[in-house]
């Protein structure tokens, strides 16, 4: 190869680049960032009909949750323009709305806003304005193997006490035959182990912050809850629990390795094990409730040039018609519809027939209370809808994983977590 050919290649390179830049310019095309979850992946196929109908081309970018958050944050924080529609969660929606990063959403009368589950709607709004439309919603509940509990002669009831849950886990725990009594999240991450741990702490009467936004991880409630958690999961959990989150436990459960699993209600639609039964989350007797609330929602970043088309797309993708379209799609059906957003979904007899978990899921979502109350000053159940939370949550999450691994005592881990949380909050001007 001569240098001449290298040079001509370099010229060609800039031409390719120019071509790439030009290709950005075509109109009526939306770039949509999605989390790589099943419902969103399915949406790519269902939305082919939308393109046919409206002529709007859809470009999908699917990313892992953490990377998506980072990308969308860096895009919006630098003025946006990269995406027209973004997938965000309940933690971000109200904050980003208040910061002016995403646009308020208003839809036509046909959208039937009142059909949206109130808890979900509140969680995605700030000061009464909706900033992100829910694509699917979830709460948490107990999923367990009824065949095992029956054989062991124990029962699990709705809002059971934690002691009963532990007793049941002990009764069905049979590691020699590869069955573990309780599978719970342990992988560090504010949306992973902390989602479960926070709801558990809530049920023990604790919260993240007091009324002045001082972290309260040094409280007795946290101490009691974490001690219980480490004991329960350490004794009756599968090995390697500190690396398990939703994905890992789902695989374990479907392999028949979990006797009981407390996690997102959405899990129920993926379970293909015989004899699964559901119960509302355990509660140690706290009025805030014991189950979480989450929604993956779609929002329009403030920097986009295609805001009108983006809003129109979101209106379609979160409508009753979309749910019907998934149900009627030859590849999917009622078993695959995104749930947890609209009351009308649960009214379809076809849906009730295929979704044995429907009633339990609806009850869990409706009983979750994301609003700020006297007990906690922030919006959100298993998280706090403040910009600093991801940082606080991740720091605490790692300490909890260290406690679960046995690298630290619960007391040391909580003390370190409290210190970290205090310093992050002080740093942020609280």
């Amino acid at each position, binding site marked *: 190869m*001569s240098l001449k050919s290298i040079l001509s290649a370099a010229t060609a*390179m800039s031409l*390719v680049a120019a071509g*790439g830049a030009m290709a*950005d310019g075509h109109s009526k095309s939306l*770039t949509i960032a999605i989390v*790589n979850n099943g419902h969103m992946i399915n949406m790519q196929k269902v939305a082919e009909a939308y393109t046919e109908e409206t002529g709007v081309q859809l*470009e999908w970018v699917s990313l892992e949750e953490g990377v998506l958050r980072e990308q969308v944050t860096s895009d919006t924080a630098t003025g946006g323009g990269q995406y027209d529609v973004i997938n965000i969660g309940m933690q971000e929606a109200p904050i980003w709305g208040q910061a002016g990063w995403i646009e308020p959403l208003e839809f036509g009368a046909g959208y039937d806003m009142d059909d949206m589950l109130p808890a979900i709607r509140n969680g995605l709004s700030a000061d009464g304005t909706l900033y992100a439309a829910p694509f699917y919603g979830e709460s948490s509940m107990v999923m367990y193997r009824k065949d095992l509990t029956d054989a062991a002669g124990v029962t699990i009831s709705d809002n059971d006490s934690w002691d009963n849950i532990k007793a049941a886990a002990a009764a069905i725990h049979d590691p020699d035959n590869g069955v573990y009594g309780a599978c719970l999240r342990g992988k560090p991450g504010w949306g992973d182990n902390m989602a479960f741990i926070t709801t558990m702490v809530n049920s023990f009467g604790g919260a993240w912050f007091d009324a002045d936004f001082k972290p309260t991880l040094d409280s007795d409630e946290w101490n009691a809850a974490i001690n219980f958690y480490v004991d329960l999961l350490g004794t009756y959990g599968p090995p390697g629990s500190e690396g398990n989150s939703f*994905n890992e436990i789902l*695989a374990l459960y479907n392999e028949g390795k979990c006797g009981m699993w407390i996690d997102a209600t959405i899990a129920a639609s993926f379970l293909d094990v015989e004899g699964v039964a559901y119960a509302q989350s355990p509660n140690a007797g706290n009025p805030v409730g014991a189950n979480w609330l989450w929604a993956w929602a779609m929002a329009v970043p403030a920097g986009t040039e295609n805001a009108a088309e983006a809003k129109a797309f979101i209106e379609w993708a979160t409508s009753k018609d979309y749910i019907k379209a998934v149900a009627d799609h030859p590849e999917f059906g009622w078993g695959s519809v995104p749930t947890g957003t609209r009351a009308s979904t649960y009214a379809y007899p076809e849906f009730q027939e295929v979704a044995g978990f429907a009633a339990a899921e609806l009850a869990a979502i409706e009983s979750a209370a994301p609003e700020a109350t006297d007990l906690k000053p922030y919006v959100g159940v298993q998280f706090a809808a403040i910009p600093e939370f991801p940082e606080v949550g991740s720091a605490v999450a790692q300490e909890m994983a260290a406690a679960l691994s046995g690298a630290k005592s619960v007391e040391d881990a909580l003390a370190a977590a409290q210190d970290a949380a205090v310093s992050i909050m002080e740093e942020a001007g609280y």
Partner: protein
Amino acid sequence: MAIVAHTSRFGKISRPILAWAVGLLFFFPIFWMVLTSFKTDADAVKPEFLIFFTPTLENYLNMTENYDYWRFAQNSVITSVFATLFTLAVGIPCAYAMAFNPSRGTKDILMWMLSTKMLPAAAVLYPMTFLTKSLGLFDTHFMIILVLSLINLPIVVWMLFTYFKEIPKDIIEAGKMDGVNTWGEVTEILIPLAWGGIASTALLCFIFCWNEAYWTVRLTTTEAATLSKLIEGNRAPEGLFFGRLSAVSTAAVGPIVVLGWFCQKQLVQGLTFGAVK
């Protein structure tokens, strides 16, 4: 002499066995990934289907159906090829000058160049995103090629420098006597003489470009997104799909592994870093 006899017996029987064992051990994870990619997600975690199972192409079909695999692959090829060429185009003259007309500062410049590689990318994510956007270069092949080139330039210059240094100065001087200009010195004398070194440098640069995953994920949306971005979209899906994960991984690393196989002779002979006596 007894020792010699002993070593040769080792050479005849134990060495091949041990060498094959080590080779297979190192290759095993890749083999396992390829094997798993032909299992359904349900079979992939079942011990009874560990080795014997009904192979399926389902995972690959799913991938090409849900993702624009060919666009990712094409982008990987385009950006890696042109970044390698551009790096060489800038690196060869620089290394040439450093090797044949070294000054007191040459060593420091080289070390400074290498030290730029240690700058943590995460610290400059926002400045870079902002700059790229304001220049209108976000999600363009041009930007990715530029970034990949700059990331690899230090290593390339340094490798080339070590090769060029081994070429006797007399040969270049002789060329000068014959009235060859600098351009001629590089294209007619230097490049043919150092061809092995240049080819291995290019290969190594290409591999690093292909596998880069920080900027190729963060400075692209769709147009210039490479296979690393396809991996980012699949590495933790909802559910732990070993089969699907393996298929995407195999499709992403397959081309570069095969290329590496074909070029392994060149790599083995070329990675001398100028240490040929």
